[in-house]
């Protein structure tokens, strides 16, 4: 093999390597750009009266219509995810300490994860009324290939899925700490 043939082979190899670098990056960018198609909906709302604090526990369904699987990272959401009542005091939950449970969201599927908000002491006796018309709003974090994408969320805490009778008691009863929902999540759907 002479020098020119070696040069030609090297060029072909470099071309293949370049395509190999470009494809995942392009896919990544397309998914990030389509992050607004990720849907977040509250399917279950509960108030847990603990010994030290009262916690608002939301079961959140995350639907992923993109072609890549996403991860909901387990974290304390510092990005401003909060529950905002329709009217009245907006500070009834401590918005900077929302605990989000991790979960895998398959491409074209959905997963339910749990989000917990500590309720401020002054509001524990009227959480139920504050939740009427309240929304889960702010940035919900999902992760693609190790990088976080913030999905804008503005969804009712007592959503349509709840009014259809999906395991929700509209009176939002207080439950004992022993009845806290488990940290396991369910995944539905599959890759495309």
């Amino acid at each position, binding site marked *: 093999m002479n020098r020119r043939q070696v*040069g030609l082979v090297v060029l072909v190899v470099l071309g293949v390597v370049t395509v190999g670098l470009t494809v995942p*990056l392009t896919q990544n960018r397309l998914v990030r750009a389509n992050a607004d198609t990720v849907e977040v909906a509250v399917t279950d709302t509960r108030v847990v009266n603990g010994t030290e604090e009262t916690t608002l526990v939301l079961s959140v369904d995350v639907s992923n219509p993109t072609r890549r699987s996403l991860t909901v990272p387990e974290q304390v959401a510092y990005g401003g995810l909060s529950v905002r009542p329709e009217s009245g005091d907006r500070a009834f939950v401590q918005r900077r300490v929302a605990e989000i449970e991790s979960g895998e969201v398959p491409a074209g599927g959905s997963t339910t994860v749990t989000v917990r908000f500590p309720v401020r002491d002054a509001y524990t006796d009227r959480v139920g009324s504050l939740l009427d018309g309240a929304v889960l709003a702010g940035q919900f974090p999902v992760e693609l290939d190790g990088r976080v994408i913030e999905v804008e969320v503005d969804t009712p805490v007592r959503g349509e899925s709840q009014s259809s009778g999906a395991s929700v008691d509209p009176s939002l009863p207080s439950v004992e700490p022993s009845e806290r929902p488990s940290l396991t999540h369910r995944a539905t759907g599959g890759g495309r």
Partner: protein
Amino acid sequence: MARLVRYEASLFERAVGGTAVGLVAGMLTFVHSRLPTWPAAFPIPDQTAVILLLLVGFALAVLELDMRSYISITLIAAAVSLPTYTALDFAPLLTSGVSPGQLFFVLVFAGGGQFSAWMLFFPVLFAGSGTYVLYRNGPFS
């Protein structure tokens, strides 16, 4: 020392070679400029795209083309690489059903960034070729 016989590429070879090198250069410019969004799960060194384009320029010079062929190929490559990079960079926009009017607006008012990045990155190709020329004719030859 034997006289070097440089290869004169045909028009077809120049067109194919220039287009291929342009596509590769455009893709590498895209990879380099968008490294902050590179999947963190598969880390690569920051200078990967620079090194690859240097190697492309080096390999292009290894072909030992005559000057006219080399210039033709790099001119075609330059003409292909900028739209390739711009298209890749605007891929999310292009796939979102943007209208031609909106696309024109974006290219006019936002395309400058792509042009600047390409202007800074594309010359790396010549640096690679120059490295080979130095290797063949310089003090180490």
